[in-house]
């Protein structure tokens, strides 16, 4: 193994050591000025780390991060000045206040699509700014409040300079730990899938609203923490802390650093705090040079500095090795002893803008049965799948699954109950490995998971083990370590199949699984599907034509223009004149 390989094996550890050594060396020459910049940089780093939760991981453009920063600053300052609280009390209180505001705001605006969400958060931020400026009796108005004490813990005043800077960076380290935990957790992987493929995430049982809210609330907490540290470092609180410029700065730091990287957040914050200072030599043109510098950096590294470094790393050292996961044997699904349907649709109907896509369809699937759904283009096949899995709400009719009426349940809830589905294009997150793409569906992750020591994520390990077994069953074991972005289309569909299976569903809905496959691949797909059915899982396969389904399905229903025109065994359907007419106007199908 070459030196390169040895370096790769060490991972990122030498980089961190180098960084620590650099900081220590810097520390020996640092005076008040350098420490000041370091402390301010730390406050912003915390805000940027928080911003990454909503902006990076959830993928929603929030414009309120500056407002949470300013709110934390004002809250902590006011508590210190008017209530005489020390930092140990005002710090968590400021965070709590921001969290409450985020919960209220998030509850109302998170459901909006991207640019509306952005504008709504902007409106909230501007309102907070106006409040700070005009509520003179509370906030001091435009003048703000002077003489904000430094960091006072119990009766000990943390001296300025090194101790205060270390306090700030201690908080940053804690924040970085939480952020890393989030990233390297089942919960975080679910957020990644949610950002990349929201529909697939719902099919994997991920509650999008809950995850977005968690991201938003976390961002607010971190933002307020940064603001509280900021105001005690600066010694005054004034409305400049709530201006839109702060938001723009945090956004730039996040993008320049890398919006999904913890190290990127810290780098971006430090860089953009120092850059205008470095350019002071340009005097009147310093900030012009800063703008030019910003432009250069974003063009040279559009994925952020961390992204560029990561890309380089991958090119030199290859992808990181996969952690070893023990395989668990697939548990046999409890086959229901009787003939009752596991999934049934009764008089299901839906219309889009006057066009009836499905008109009163009634059908069912039994456990261990393969139901084929065929029909020409536009007959409503995909509509049926979307209705069953919960992505559309029917205008009339009911859906019964495993004995309960699920018509009103959202897609993610149905997925959690055991109704799995795959997508035509193989919906995977590009930056997750195939193993992790499957693992997100294998366990129920909660936000509390991020508050734990690193390396002790049992939930994730178990999920990965089950994912590994599922990949085996889907014939995709060799793909486990490859990133989603590097998979071919048919490989993606196999991985998706594994994801659909990993949660041990009771029913699995497949959307044109055979499209684009060679005959040999079709054959092995049929074998896989038979194996799934043999485990007692109900299988619904949507497909264009008979050739694939004839040897496979137990029963077939045929749709045309939103109605079921025939139902029965495959041979019966093939002989049905209605079916032939619907498809090819009379020409016999194979």
């Amino acid at each position, binding site marked *: 193994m070459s030196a390169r390989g040895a370096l790769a094996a060490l991972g990122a550890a030498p980089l961190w050591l180098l960084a620590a050594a650099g900081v220590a060396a810097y520390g020996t020459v640092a005076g008040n000025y350098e420490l000041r910049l370091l402390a301010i940089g730390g406050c912003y780093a915390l805000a940027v780390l928080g911003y990454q939760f909503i902006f990076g991981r959830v993928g929603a453009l929030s414009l309120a991060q500056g407002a949470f920063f300013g709110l934390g600053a004002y809250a902590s300052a006011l508590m210190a000045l008017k209530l005489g609280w020390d930092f140990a009390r005002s710090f968590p209180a400021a965070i709590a206040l921001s969290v409450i505001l985020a919960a209220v705001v998030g509850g109302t605006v998170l459901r909006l699509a991207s640019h509306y969400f952005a504008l709504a958060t902007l409106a909230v931020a501007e309102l907070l700014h106006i409040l700070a400026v005009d509520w003179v009796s509370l906030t001091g108005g*435009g003048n703000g409040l002077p003489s904000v004490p430094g960091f006072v813990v119990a009766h000990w005043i943390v001296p300025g300079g090194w101790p205060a800077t270390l306090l700030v960076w201690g908080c940053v380290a804690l924040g970085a730990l939480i952020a890393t935990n989030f990233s390297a957790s089942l919960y975080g992987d679910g957020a990644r899938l949610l950002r990349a493929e929201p529909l697939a995430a719902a099919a994997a049982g991920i509650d999008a609203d809950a995850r977005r809210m968690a991201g938003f609330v976390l961002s607010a907490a971190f933002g307020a923490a940064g603001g509280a540290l900021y105001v005690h470092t600066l010694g005054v609180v004034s409305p400049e802390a709530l201006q839109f410029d702060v938001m723009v700065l945090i956004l730039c730091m996040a993008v320049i650093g890398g919006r999904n990287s913890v190290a990127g957040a810290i780098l971006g914050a430090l860089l953009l705090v120092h850059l205008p200072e470095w350019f002071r030599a340009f005097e009147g043109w310093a900030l012009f040079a800063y703008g030019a510098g910003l432009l250069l950096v974003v063009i040279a590294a559009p994925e952020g500095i961390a992204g560029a470094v990561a890309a380089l790393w991958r090119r030199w050292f290859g992808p990181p090795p996969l952690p070893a996961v023990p395989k668990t044997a697939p548990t046999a699904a409890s086959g229901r002893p009787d003939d009752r349907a596991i999934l049934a649709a009764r008089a299901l109907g839906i219309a889009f803008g006057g066009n009836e896509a499905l008109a009163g369809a009634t059908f069912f699937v039994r456990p261990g049965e393969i139901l084929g759904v065929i029909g020409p283009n536009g007959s409503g096949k995909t509509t049926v799948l979307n209705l069953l899995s919960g992505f559309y709400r029917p205008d009339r009719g009911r859906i019964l699954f495993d004995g309960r009426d699920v018509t009103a349940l959202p897609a993610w809830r149905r997925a959690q109950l055991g109704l799995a589905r795959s997508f035509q294009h193989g919906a995977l997150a590009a930056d997750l490995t195939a193993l992790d793409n499957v693992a997100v569906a294998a366990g129920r992750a909660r936000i509390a998971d991020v508050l734990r020591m690193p390396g002790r994520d049992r939930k994730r390990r178990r999920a990965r083990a089950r994912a590994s077994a599922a990949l085996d069953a889907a014939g995709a074991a060799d793909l486990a370590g490859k990133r989603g972005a590097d998979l071919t289309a048919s490989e993606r569909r196999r991985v998706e199949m594994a994801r659909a299976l990993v949660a041990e569903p009771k029913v699995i809905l497949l959307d044109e699984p055979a499209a684009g496959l060679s005959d040999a691949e079709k054959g092995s797909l049929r074998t896989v599907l038979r194996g799934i059915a043999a485990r007692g899982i109900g299988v619904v396969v949507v497909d264009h034509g008979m050739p694939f389904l004839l040897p496979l399905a137990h029963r077939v229903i045929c749709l045309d223009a939103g109605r079921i025109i025939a139902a029965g065994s495959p041979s019966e359907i093939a002989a049905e004149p209605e079916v032939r007419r619907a498809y090819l106007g009379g020409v016999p199908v194979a």
Partner: protein
Amino acid sequence: MNRFARFVVGGAALFALTASGRAMELPAFPVLVPLTGALALEGQSQRNGAVLALEDFARQRKDSRIRDEVLDTGSNPQTAVQAFERAFGRVRAMEGAKPRALMGPIDGNSMLALLPLAEREQVALLAVSGTARLTELGNKYIFRFFPSDVVVKAAQARYIVETLGRRKIALVHQNTAYGQSGNEELTRWFERLGASVVYRNSLPVTTKELAGVIAQVRDSGADVVALQLHSGSSALFVGQAARAGLNLPIVAGSALHQPSTAALLEPSELKGVCAETASAPAADDRPALAEFARRYRERFKSEPDAFALAAYDAVRAALSVWFDAKPIHISLAAGPIPGLAMPYATDGKGNMAHDAIIVCYDGSGRTPRIAKRYSRPHEAARP
């Protein structure tokens, strides 16, 4: 990869360029002013005045030169504090000793953040900010060479009530630190003088269309308008009020003495408008000030205003005691100091300037004439 390498090389070159320092032999006078942001206009004036003072000093004392170390404070406290630490760090590194005095930015919030630092470093901090609170915190290092709000608002209020005889005030102020601070002082003075504020409005800097405000002023039955606005909003109000035919006398804050503000308006729109200010170097015909104005115009190709003159006087005052053995903050507190705008003497709390003037436009041009001079208007007994 290639692009990345190019970026790294370019960045390194840029970094090397910016890290180069300036000539190291001369002692430095840090001038911390907002050159960007909301108060850049006043800050740029302030910088010009300070730089001119240092250049005049060099011209007069050919043997010794003190160079300026101008740093942008960005109109916000964070950048101001960073500028302070940087100035001190650099001067210490280059001269082996800390600066003897420094000029602070005109915005009150930044000054408030710098006060504890001046205390920590035990260095005289020259101020031209009018925010009253600066001298109420017991800091003995601040020296304000500009009359505080307490002084100029007294002049403004007294001119309205005593000279113009108006008692129903419409008070339009900016929703910034400057506007709110002035609003408080004016309100207090109107009460003392027996006038009543019948209308008040808090105006954001971004509000450009003032038809609604003007209509409200008209509806309120006020007989005079008192403004406490920055340059842009002042000009907008005066111009739109003139066009709307408001026909009330306007007595404004110092923004309306600034030649750059008057340049935005037609002389006919300025008729009947007055402003309080510490001084009006571009309009004052006293020989020393006229000479100052001439030199300023030549050097900076623009008209001087009270902020430039105040900065000039402040820096000259510090320079006059620079080579004393005592620290500058002791010398400045010792006795009266002459200045171009007015005589300066501390009141024990750091306020050095106690006089104000009212300038008025008569409609013939954009240069006002000095209508009234007040000496210590805030100390007059209750009328």
